[in-house]
């Protein structure tokens, strides 16, 4: 599989993934009947905000690693609470977390490509 190396492509795919995850989180908070629904709203809102930050390419050296860490943190948080309580083990959550896993990979590639020195210099 060809991995895109253009930071612009990686940045916009990251924006799409972040935005999708954010919307899914908010939808899940709204539709999911049960515990942690306010937390899902908050997680989703933060994702939507960070999608705008990444799209604007604002402070990428700080913003990109932050999103990378945030996505890993939320994935692990979900996995731990889901395994511990049995909550959040359904199709919507699985799709949401699959997109989040893709986002982690996308962010890692984006960070590496953004920090790679240009061959012209």
């Amino acid at each position, binding site marked *: 599989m060809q991995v895109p190396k253009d930071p612009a492509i990686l940045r916009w795919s990251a924006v799409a993934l972040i935005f999708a995850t954010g919307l899914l989180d908010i939808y899940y908070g709204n539709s999911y*009947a049960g*515990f942690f629904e306010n937390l899902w709203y908050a997680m989703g809102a933060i994702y939507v905000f960070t999608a705008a930050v990444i799209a604007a390419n604002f402070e990428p050296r700080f913003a990109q690693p932050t999103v990378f860490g945030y996505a890993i943190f939320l994935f692990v948080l979900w996995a*731990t609470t889901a395994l511990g309580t049995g*909550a959040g083990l359904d199709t919507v959550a699985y799709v949401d977390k699959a997109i989040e896993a893709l986002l982690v990979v996308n962010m890692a590639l984006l*960070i590496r490509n953004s*920090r*790679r*020195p240009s061959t012209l210099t």
Partner: protein
Amino acid sequence: MALCQGKKLDKTFSKREFEPTAMTQSTTRQWSTEKLLLVIGMIAIVAGIAIGASVGYAVRYEAPTTRTFYLFNSSLNFDEELWGVSHDTFAPDRITVNKADKVVIIYRNIEDQNEDHTFTMDAPYKFDAVVHVGRNETTPVVSSAPDLTSVNLHQNQTAVISFTASWGGVFQYRCIYHYPTMTGYLVVLG
């Protein structure tokens, strides 16, 4: 002259020393990016596990589950005509579940006379109901229907009522023939 040469040599040396080559720069930067990703990843994983485990432990959340209740009609020992209200009630008159639980109510009309009772709920709740001809749910099915708001039971019939508690709050269930005394409340926590 010697001094001049020395200065020249020093200049050359210092220029070589501090002029970064493309290879060194690239290697150093790549390493630090990977290290950065690794450190962020490790911190995020540790923080996620720690917070997730402590939240799960502290809150002691019970995951959505199926909760079964047995519901009966009951009657209080007073003269209905004298007091002007029905003496029929529900037993129990309160059902408490967590939001997202699947609720199964096995409702029995245990009247000792020929009298009907209903189980009726208002929006947003609707339920599936299977009515059995006899005193328990192993007897033959009389009727079965989804998305009902009311089900009627004759004497000695049993209904299996099921729904998911998708809305939090307090919701009334009642018998339309013996309202308002035959009223119960579904309490959905969350």
